[in-house]
């Protein structure tokens, strides 16, 4: 068991490192000159500076060093909790993140929870109801939900709930009411993805012989569905929990932009537009870290939910016997 946990943690760290390095490579291979962008942001024409001034600035940001040296510098900085300095805002990226991460975490976590509940409930109902037409209707819903673009859902919600009914504010970062519509926007997509996977898993589980055994005992349909089908059906769906959480994080870019929430998503959008490399790098790293963390938690929870898992290693050795 200890070996299993250590292995999983090691994998998570490796994935995180790979994500960071890949992002670094892509951003630094971009054709534009980061210093030019930075000066442009400050309103200075590059042409007006002398070569000595340019060199001085480059030196100040470490841009005169080789790409390897820069990579090493950034990586070691990151390990010490230093994300570098924003090129456009001249403040430590760490401070920017700290300031913006609160609203995004609020949004992502709420959206993930809502998606989990909505998606599971929909899948449960769609496979439990016995009316054929209702069953068909419910099992088609996820495909519909997954096909609406998020900005469209967001604009629809704003139009209807803010402008017509006036229930929730169209923009802003403060209070519960500002959270409702962004969470809904993200949940429509995320719960649809989850429900699709879960419905398929339910259908497969309900065809298993042990379900017949359970029914043959004389259990009611709801008892069979809840006690025997649900847990077994949820196991394969657990693997996409990481994807769902990842989705809520990436969705925050669109959602925060549309609803003008001051979160990391909006920060990322601004940073990309301004090619603020350290900020983009930091945001990607944080998002990757969340993704990796959720997957790690899922992997570690899995053996608790599926009694067969801890034995996988032993039984693959034993299978040859």
């Amino acid at each position, binding site marked *: 068991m200890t070996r299993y946990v250590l292995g999983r943690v090691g994998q998570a760290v490796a994935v995180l490192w790979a994500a960071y390095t890949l992002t670094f490579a892509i951003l630094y291979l971009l054709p534009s000159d980061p210093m030019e962008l930075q000066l442009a942001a400050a309103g200075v024409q590059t042409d007006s500076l002398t070569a000595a001034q340019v060199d001085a600035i480059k030196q100040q940001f470490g841009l005169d060093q080789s790409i390897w040296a820069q990579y090493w510098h950034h990586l070691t900085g990151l390990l010490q909790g230093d994300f570098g300095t924003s090129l456009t805002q001249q403040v430590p990226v760490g401070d920017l993140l700290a300031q913006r991460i609160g609203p995004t975490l609020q949004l992502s976590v709420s959206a993930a929870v809502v998606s989990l509940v909505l998606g599971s409930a929909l899948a449960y109902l769609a496979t439990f109801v016995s009316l054929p037409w209702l069953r068909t209707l419910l099992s088609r819903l996820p495909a519909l939900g997954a096909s609406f673009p998020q900005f469209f859902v967001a604009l629809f919600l704003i139009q209807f709930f803010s402008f017509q009914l006036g229930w929730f504010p169209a923009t802003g970062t403060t209070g519960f009411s500002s959270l409702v519509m962004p969470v809904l926007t993200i949940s429509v997509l995320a719960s649809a993805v989850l429900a699709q996977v879960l419905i398929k898993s339910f259908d497969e589980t309900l065809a298993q012989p042990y379900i017949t055994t359970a029914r*043959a005992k*004389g259990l009611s349909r709801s008892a069979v569905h809840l006690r025997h089908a649900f847990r077994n059906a949820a196991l394969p769906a657990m693997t996409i929990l990481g994807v769902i959480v990842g989705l809520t994080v990436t969705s925050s870019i669109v959602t925060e932009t549309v609803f003008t929430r001051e979160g990391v998503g909006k920060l990322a959008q601004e940073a990309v537009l301004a090619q603020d490399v350290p900020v983009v790098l930091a945001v990607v790293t944080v998002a990757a870290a969340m993704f990796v963390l959720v997957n790690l938690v899922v992997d570690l929870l899995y053996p608790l939910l599926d*009694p067969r898992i801890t034995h996988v290693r*032993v039984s693959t050795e*034993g299978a040859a*016997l």
Partner: protein
Amino acid sequence: MTLVHIQGLDVGYARHRTISPAVTGLDLTVAQGEVVAIVGESGSGKTTTANALIGLLPANGRITAGSAVVDGVETAGAKERVLRGLRGSVVGLIPQDPMVGLNPTQRVGAQVAEAVRLRGGSHTEALAFLEEAGVPDPEMRARQYPHELSGGLRQRVLIAIALAGKPKLIIADEPTSALDVTVQKRILDHLEGLVRGQGIALLIITHDLAVAADRADRIAVMRDGRKVEEGNPGQILHFPAEPYTRRLVEAATPAIPRPTPASPAVPRSTPASPAGPRAEPLSRFEPASPAVPRLEAEQPAAPSPEPAAHAELGSPAAPLSGPAAPDVPGPATVSRPTSDPAPASPAFPQAKAVPPGSPTPPPDLSSFAGGAATVLPRPPREDVGDPSLNGAAILAYPQGKTETSPTPVLALNEVSKIFPVSDPRRGRRGFNALDKVTFEVPRGRTHALVGESGCGKTTTLRIALGLESATSGSVRLDGHEIAGLSWNRMRPLRRKAQLVHQDPFATLDPKFSVRQSIVEPLVSFRVGDRRSREARARELLDQVALPVSYLDRRPRELSGGQRQRVAIARALALQPDLIMLDEPVSALDVLVQEQILQLLAELQRELGLSYLFVSHDLAVVARISHTVSVMSDGRIVEQGRVADVFTNPSSPRTRELVEAIPGRRANAA
């Protein structure tokens, strides 16, 4: 008193707005405490009938006419609530496959307790049921999950669940298809004792007439949704009225004759030998081959409707053998080894007695299993070498070959295999999976490895295939030492030995057409070009008696037997010397088993193939093998010619395996 009363029952499955019938006009009754068996091949409607009784028809299943009354309750058109009242408390079910019949995420004790609690029982009662079902140490087992139990224990847990509702009827669906014969025998004996002791009625659903005959008071034979025959085991076995039942009886014949003093076959078969001068020298090498000639003799005999032949069934000399019997006493004679070649010879003239052209399959056999039964005699193939061979001289070929090349095609010498097993309490230690296993597969012959699961036969097979390396000992394939060879050095030798798997449903890539599956070995060894491969594919399909039009089919369009034929064709593609058969028929219905065994025997005769045949089913082994090694706990406990080993077993393990062959009890009665 009548517990189940089925009258004029029609059950169908709704498909594309039409209803395709699965059961038609069925009448059947089960009295209280009675043991009834429904026998039939897959698709005969036997499982549908059982499901209708317990109200567990699939969503598209409908009772379209008739009635099925269980304990006074009409199930036809009944509401779910009514059916639920029957399940568990009136009708218990023991599902088909114990490996997948239990919820993998729940402790087994909880699964039994759930059934107990439905009646308002307590947890301790669940333990009592586990104990009653024969689960040792129920308190400890109840805390375990299904994957921690063996198949036999899982079956017992399922029996405990069925008993837990205190039902009046238990339905056992194919209770013998998933487990080892010895395990099954113990479990079925136990179950039978329980139901007889408690006055519970038992409905056995099976494709194996031998199993039914051993246990049931009454047998109903079903085919294509109709009941074709019904009677007590004696009537069905000895005086089957329908040709279909007769075929089932033949397939159920236990192939191992008990040693008997009388031997009527000797005077009958000796004069029939046309090859007098040749028979004797051959028979010195070839004394004990009861299996292969039997298969030959069976084909022409099968359609024969002579009632006189059936009278023989009752005689102790011809146990349960039916019209296929004439050669059965043959092996019985050989069973007592003797240095005198004369009594040992009937095996050879027996085979000769079948004219080369005669094994034409009965016409109705081919309609069954989708035409898979067309086992036609073919002219000798040129590449076989010996021009003197003909279709019937089955023993001559291997003999000639053995003389020219005495090296066995496969020889294992003192092969041991130790698996490292990590044990949390005692640290790492070795598990001795194989202990000095030594045997040979002679050229052109069949050697069988038998034993319960876990005895090491699969490990032996994997080592012989070079998929696993032996810890010590020598493995010689066609004279080449393969133990310790690297993957690349082994690869050219792989052509010499091919494998046919147990499960015909998993062995073929569902996305490959039959053609692609068959030519794949040729492609991977870069043999021939497209045109020659196409020609080879057609030839191979012909060899396994499938029509050439099947080349473009996908596995899902084929029956189990047909898939296994494709798998055999694929194994033949590279013209190997040795084919390893890993339980090749255990997943098939008995009648299809028979056809596949016939095909294998015929291919061996034509192509001079050698087989290493791995099985837990002695009845099957006796039909196809010349020599046998009985394995137990990684050791070979007994070895020798099939007739010697099975008729006169010296090891208790072998005796147990022989005892477990279904059909013996009914036969002895």
